[in-house]
């Protein structure tokens, strides 16, 4: 118990996730497996149910301290937590001896048997235990008894710590932690086992997410090497269909399958060995709903069935990472896109329109960089599907955001290693002509991200260095001799009728992963009527301060675009 209490304290006393993870890693590396199993149980927010009502704890604390209920209420008003109030008041009850039982013994031989006892027997046990514990352990014990222990780490962080302790991929741990399990030593051993388990088959690929570009636009090279596609404001996710199972992973490497059963059901029609990268969107009648609608689906643990009706969702596919069990991340984007169009053809595996393929802007970038960019807001309906979405959004003032995504087109001809943009430009246009609103994305996935920097003189990266660089890329860095991805930001900023918005990442809302939005300059374009606050905030956003999400949802008259670096997550 002392070891677990110390872990709790360490986690409680820092706001740094790294420090939390390393505290857990140290704990997992040293705790006996049976204890560690229970620690995982509590750290991941699982609870012992139906043990002791909070009212009992309160009564026992009163009788141990001889205080009146009214003063406990006064204390509770200050502390705001029943177990902590009791533990603080109990400080006047001295600790009589020290005893350090392992956590597993505490839970299995002391706490759980309380269920079979009547209240006086429970009180006798619990109050005698107090006398062997210090303040922190008393607090933890009371929290365990009332099933309220919240440790301030997410399951993702726990997975990360376990993965570090075991030397396994995070996703293996995360997959093994899903579903039902009972915490005991053998289960803990299997959790950290190096041998592959069934759960390992659900693992996603590393996520690669937007980050702002650095450096000058000149480094971008030929604008034709870039395409624009639409990025919607939802939950970035990977849909993994392998064996008989479907797993939906959020970008935080959390499993969210159970929250979106309709997507999981639709995905069963995909071929075995398919991994899609995309975005979960609240979606009704062919258009996206505001992100706030989707939040209902995230927030509620229960009532999923009802929410499936009231807030329908789709999976908007951006990319195909694995096809028939083959990792195709290294293939040129043109091939992947072509495969995607086959796999997600509406008449076969479209999944009752639950699985959609993202629309891609059919004009290459040079038509929207510089002076042409301003024309994007003035197109008429019918030109392409994404434009239609956008116009609808603008017309009804809805709050869903539609964002253009600039991505680099694969420039390297893989067969002979020559840099040859022409075939790609052609492939892009032929794709685009096959289907309105269709284009080509780059091969900027997984560890190969760095190999596909779009500019001609990208350093050749040896394949065996790919993993290390992938890690670097995930930290948002680039290997020293590889040119940084070019800066679309500054180019667009030169266009006088545009304003650059820096926003927190739309999914994590974290300022650590800002994205760049490009919108018509509010100084030139009139703000949407009736939303002065939005206009005001937009102006402040232009001057660099963060824009609150409530306002962000009110800027659909702008044409926001997400500029995405072709690498890093």
């Amino acid at each position, binding site marked *: 118990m002392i070891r677990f209490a110390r872990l709790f304290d360490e986690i*409680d*006393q*820092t*706001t*740094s996730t790294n420090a939390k993870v390393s505290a857990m890693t140290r704990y997992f590396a040293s705790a006996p497996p049976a204890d560690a199993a229970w620690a995982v149980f509590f750290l991941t927010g699982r609870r012992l149910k139906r043990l002791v009502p909070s009212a009992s704890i309160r009564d026992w604390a009163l009788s141990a*301290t001889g*205080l*009146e209920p*009214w*003063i406990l209420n*006064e*204390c509770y008003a*200050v*502390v*705001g*937590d029943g177990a*902590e*109030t009791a533990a*603080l*008041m109990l*400080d*006047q009850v001295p600790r009589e001896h020290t005893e350090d039982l392992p956590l597993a013994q505490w839970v299995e031989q002391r706490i759980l048997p309380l269920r079979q006892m009547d209240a006086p027997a429970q009180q006798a046990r619990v109050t005698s235990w107090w006398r062997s514990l210090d303040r922190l352990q008393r607090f933890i014990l009371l929290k365990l008894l009332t099933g309220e222990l919240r440790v301030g780490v997410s399951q993702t962080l726990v997975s990360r710590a376990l993965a570090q302790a075991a030397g396994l991929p995070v996703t293996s741990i995360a997959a093994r932690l899903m579903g039902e399990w009972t915490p005991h030593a053998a289960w803990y051993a299997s959790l950290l086992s190096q041998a592959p388990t069934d759960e390992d088959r659900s693992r996603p690929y590393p996520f690669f997410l937007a980050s702002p570009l650095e450096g000058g636009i000149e480094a971008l090279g030929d604008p034709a090497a870039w395409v624009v596609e639409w990025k919607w404001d939802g939950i970035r996710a990977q849909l993994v269909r392998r064996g008989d199972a479907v797993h939906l992973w959020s970008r935080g490497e959390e499993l969210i399958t159970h929250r979106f059963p309709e997507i999981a059901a639709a995905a069963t029609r995909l071929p075995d060995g398919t991994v899609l990268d995309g975005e979960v969107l609240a979606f009704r009648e062919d258009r996206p709903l505001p992100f706030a609608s989707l939040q209902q689906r995230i927030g509620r643990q229960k009532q999923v069935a009802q929410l499936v009706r009231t807030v329908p969702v789709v999976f908007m596919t951006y990319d195909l990472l694995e096809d028939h069990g083959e990792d195709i991340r290294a293939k040129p984007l043109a091939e992947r896109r072509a495969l995607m169009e086959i796999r997600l053809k509406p008449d076969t595996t479209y999944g009752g329109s639950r699985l959609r393929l993202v629309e891609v802007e059919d004009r290459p970038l040079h038509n929207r960089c510089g002076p042409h960019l301003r024309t994007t807001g003035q197109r008429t309906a019918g030109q392409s599907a994404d434009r239609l979405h956008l116009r609808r959004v603008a017309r009804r003032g809805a709050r869903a955001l539609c964002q253009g995504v600039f991505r680099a087109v694969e420039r390297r001809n893989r067969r002979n290693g020559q840099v040859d943009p022409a075939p790609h430009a052609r492939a892009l246009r032929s794709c685009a002509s096959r289907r309105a609103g269709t284009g080509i994305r780059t091969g900027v996935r997984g560890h190969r991200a760095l190999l596909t920097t779009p500019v001609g003189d990208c350093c050749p990266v040896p394949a065996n260095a790919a993993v290390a660089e992938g890690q670097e890329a995930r930290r948002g860095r680039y290997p020293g001799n590889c040119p940084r991805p070019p800066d679309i930001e500054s180019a667009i900023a030169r266009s006088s009728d545009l304003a650059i918005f820096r926003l927190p990442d739309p999914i994590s809302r974290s300022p650590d992963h800002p994205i760049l939005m490009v919108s018509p300059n509010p100084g030139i374009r009139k703000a949407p009527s009736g939303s002065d606050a939005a206009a005001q905030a937009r102006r402040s956003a232009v001057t660099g301060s963060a824009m609150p999400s409530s306002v962000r949802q009110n800027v659909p008259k702008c044409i926001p675009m997400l500029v995405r670096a072709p690498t890093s997550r």
Partner: protein
Amino acid sequence: MLSETPAGVYCSAGGFYIDPWLPVEHALITHAHGDHARPGSAAYLCADASVALLRRRFGADALIESLPYGRRITRGAITVSFHPAGHVLGSAQVRLEGPDGVWVLSGDYKRDDDPTCAAFEPVPCDTFITESTFGLPIYRWDPSSAVIADILQWWDSNRDAGKSSVLFCYTIGKAQRLLAELARVTDRPAHAHGMMLPMIEAYREAGVTMLPVRPATEQPRGTSFAGELVLAPLSARGTPWMRRLGNLSDAFASGLMRVRGVRRQRSFDRGFVLSDHADWPALLRTIEETGARRVLATHGHAEPLARFLGEQGLQSGTIRTAWEGEPSGD
């Protein structure tokens, strides 16, 4: 003996106010914290050790007279004396003796050992006006030596991690107490925000032994604070000044940190429960030691303390002052 007026607690028989919050003719000051010592009064009277601090607050022109602890003087029909309160340097309880018997107004006080000031002395009285900043049974302090050991350990582990340790605390009393307590266990120099330096200097002049202190505000740009301990007032939190401290861990030294939710809400990495106020047991013990039959509580959790004392058979009540106690006590 005393009445509540718009300017503060007034003693008409003696013609003076105690810790008034508006300018008055004659002000008795218990100690130099901002919620007790307000500028603008014509004449101040305080304990000797408080003069240097009040001088720094009120300037050279203020009329400040002082008494040694225990010396009695007469004001009108009242005999007045100051007695150590153990709160900060020069802090005093005010004893008033007159036709209504003996009254003692505690000001802020604590019973714990503090190397920076004279220890609290219980003063027998009929009516005791006690502070009640932490007047609930959840407030109970560990020995300060244990807290200081925690702080040193925190500082050490931040040094190992190449971080600076930013310890927020009040400018008068807490900062100096920390520096004096730390001087017992280490001789590493500390840094302090510029706002804290004058009062640290005043304590040093009063003969208090403290860690050597370097100004953290006047270091040349680019000075690394990795591994250093930096004391700073809460008002510096979140200011651009913080940026020069680099990678840091922050903490707040206050009795408020006793409650986990308060620390988490303010998102300090660490909260060190170190208070210059009496905790619940100390309040009860002190009240008992004064032998007072009537107790009036003021500030903080005055109502619960008064109710509790009433249930113990004492005559009790509350009195309004402008004291703010620890939450903003300078």
